């Protein structure tokens, strides 16, 4: 039924490896800031609960950071192995930005990560706090480089094309390209939301199991307050990002909305659900709200924006995919707001730590941040198609010339490995979470000589297979 071309397999492989990878840095970014806040509160209020939580989440941060480094190793080479013609064309821009990201990560590892993970008893509290803050800033700097590189592929600027190759002309314009600020903000808030939902679900899990100590309650309520602020903020940021996309990549918006053509003098309706059919050039079975689509995207009652039919067939992204990935993201975003409002309401009534229904919902929503983040990322990347660099290079001209057979075998090996390696890693993280914060709040890394910043995984000493890790 399905037959994949070499291009399809290369795209699926890239999507697969990034899907696995992106989860770890997203949680790293969110947890780093969370840890900086926790340590700040500990220094300010000297309340034991913040220190206990700091030590607990530091271990999970460390394992997660390690997984991110390992899964990132493949990324540094995949541009060449799978997208060699892209690398030759735009390596002069992507290469330097990725190199700066790598340098930032190593700067962090060499400088501050070690102090943060293993220096609690070795350096003064102020210096330790400084290290934690620097790690948090460092993760954001890392994200900045990656998103600058990615945004440039969506809205290229500051370059010239000389002899069929991209040449950077103005690095400030390359980095601060038109979609970069929106994309960065949207991604960072998504990382914060993913982390808040993950931390909240961890707290909810322990609450459901009857644990009521201050650290668990604090963990849950901090996560819900973060959600309360970040979820509505993300709606506003997402709206701005959408307007920016409409300005620079109108075909993507048309595909996301399943919008084919305008009716003169009438605002574009919002298609809630439907099935975009690329061949028939229509969205089947649609349920729509009149004028709302145009209102959202143009902030005008009679608003119109280009439909897919205004673009040549070969320039249209696959609407059936992005229409739905976009709705998954938005739908989960709405559920996040529901969770935030529900927990705020119960907090106001004073029963947020006792409602089993609320805790079950929060537990269920644990992975929703990451799922929404991935759905959003699929939307923007698949929506950029058929271009790899928007308007400059088509994806089919970017791919390395490998045979279907080569790619299929490579992909199968990759999937098997990833499932074992990162599956084990994820299980280990969940075991650490399942164990919950210890009563003594022991700092990770006593004086064991081989706990090293270059090996963040060594910060967590719990056994992987030990059944005792479920006891508390």
């Amino acid at each position, binding site marked *: 039924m399905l037959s994949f071309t070499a291009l399809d397999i290369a795209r699926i492989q890239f999507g697969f490896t990034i899907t696995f990878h992106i989860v770890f840095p997203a949680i790293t970014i969110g947890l780093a800031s969370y840890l900086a806040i926790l340590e700040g509160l500990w220094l300010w209020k000297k309340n034991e609960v913040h220190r206990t939580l700091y030590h607990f989440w530091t271990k999970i941060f460390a394992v997660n950071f390690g997984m991110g480094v390992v899964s990132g190793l493949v990324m540094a080479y995949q541009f060449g192995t799978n997208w060699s013609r892209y690398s*030759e064309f735009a*390596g002069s821009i992507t290469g330097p930005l990725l*190199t700066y*990201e*790598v340098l930032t990560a190593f700067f962090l590892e060499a400088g501050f990560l070690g102090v943060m993970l293993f220096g609690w008893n070795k350096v003064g509290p102020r210096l330790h706090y400084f290290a934690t803050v620097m790690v948090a800033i460092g993760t954001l700097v890392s994200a900045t480089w990656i998103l600058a590189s990615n945004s440039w592929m969506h809205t290229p600027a500051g370059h010239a094309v000389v002899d069929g190759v991209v040449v950077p002309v103005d690095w400030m314009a390359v980095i601060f390209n038109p979609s970069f600020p929106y994309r960065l903000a949207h991604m960072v808030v998504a990382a914060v939301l993913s982390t808040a939902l993950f931390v909240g679900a961890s707290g909810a899990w322990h609450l459901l199991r009857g644990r009521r100590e201050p650290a668990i309650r604090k963990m849950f309520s901090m996560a819900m307050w973060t959600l309360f602020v970040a979820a509505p903020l993300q709606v506003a940021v997402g709206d701005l990002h959408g307007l920016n996309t409409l300005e620079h990549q109108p075909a993507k918006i048309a595909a996301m909305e399943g919008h084919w053509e305008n009716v003169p003098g009438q605002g574009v309706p919002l298609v809630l659900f439907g099935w975009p059919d690329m061949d028939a050039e229509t969205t089947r079975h649609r349920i729509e709200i009149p004028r709302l689509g145009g209102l959202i995207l143009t902030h005008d009652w009679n608003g119109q924006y280009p439909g897919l039919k205004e673009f040549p067939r070969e320039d249209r992204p696959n609407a059936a995919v992005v229409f739905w990935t976009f709705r998954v993201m938005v739908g989960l975003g709405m559920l996040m707001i529901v969770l935030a409002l529900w927990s705020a309401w119960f907090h106001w009534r004073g029963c947020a730590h006792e409602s089993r229904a609320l805790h079950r919902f929060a537990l269920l929503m644990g992975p929703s941040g990451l799922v929404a983040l991935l759905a959003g990322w699929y939307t923007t990347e698949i929506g950029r198609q058929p271009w790899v660099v928007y308007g400059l290079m088509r994806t089919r001209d970017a791919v390395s010339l490998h045979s279907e057979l080569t790619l299929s075998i*490579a992909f199968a090996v990759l999937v098997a490995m990833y499932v074992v390696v990162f599956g*084990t890693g994820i299980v280990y993280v969940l075991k650490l979470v399942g164990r919950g914060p210890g009563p003594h709040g022991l700092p990770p890394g006593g004086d064991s000589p081989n706990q090293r910043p270059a090996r963040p995984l060594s910060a*967590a000493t719990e*056994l992987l297979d030990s059944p005792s890790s479920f006891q508390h």
Partner: protein
Amino acid sequence: MGIDLPLIWMLIIGFGVMMYVVMDGFDLGIGILFPFISDRAHRDAMVNTVAPVWDGNETWLVLGGAGLMAAFPKAYAILLSAFYIPVLLMLLGLIWRGVSFEFRFKADDAHKPFWDKAFMTGSFAAAFFQGVILGAYIDGASVMAAAQGTGDSMAWLTPFSLFTGAGVVAAYALLGATWLVLKTEGELQRRMIRVTHPIMIAILVAILVVGIWTPINHPAIAGRWFSLPNFWFFVPVPALVVLAAAGIFRSLGRDPHAGPFIWSLLLVFLGYSGFVISIWPHIVPPSLSIWEAAGPPQSLGFTLVGALLIIPMILGYSAWAYYVFRGKVKVGEEYH
């Protein structure tokens, strides 16, 4: 004339590759030597000698990949797509090795053998495919054709590249064994001294075979070495190889400590020098030079600023880590 940016970048990447080969070489060597040691306490001691440093050693590989893309996008594109399969297998080997290294510490006794095997296979695969890539890289022409879609995607797989794969496994085993001679004592050290002898013989055979095979296959490389006056400039390389080999055998015989490891480093450095002499100034043999493959000066200059700031820091930090963890690792010492 201005600054020769491609040359500076070639030196940085060349330096990074050498650092990688030397440093990750002995880490991978430890995994390669695992089959020769079955005692649990000995295996733990072997792993503990590199526990503080192995991850930092891998830094150079990531930096090399990103730096190559930034400075020589054309070479990055050609080489990585030509070596798609061996590069992927090498990376998977490294991931497998790295993760099993950590989970080995965290596994209970029932699962430890699984992660031990993973550590062995990962180390072996990473080393072997690095060697395969090296051999295929020297055989540049067919590989370049493959990258442009006009050749065979399995062009990298030749008797020569399989042979260099085995050669690199032996070289890393040598680095690992002599590193352990330096870092351990007692029974484990005696075993390592014993195992170094056959490894050395294998390496000398490998060097000899590659030394004859390469110039026969590649007249240009033969011309580089065997024409006058080049011959007199380059003759110290094989002469020093003989000296280093003699040094290893001699130092092994008299209560060795750092001697065999230092001689091994010299041997690997000489192998690397021979390789550079053979292909210079090409970044994709036999015809694409570093200047032809370089990206625009704006990219090279922009990235150089960051590299010159951060690389000295990484070097200082690595040196510090080795200094802190100097001295012998004792068998049975509990780390976790």
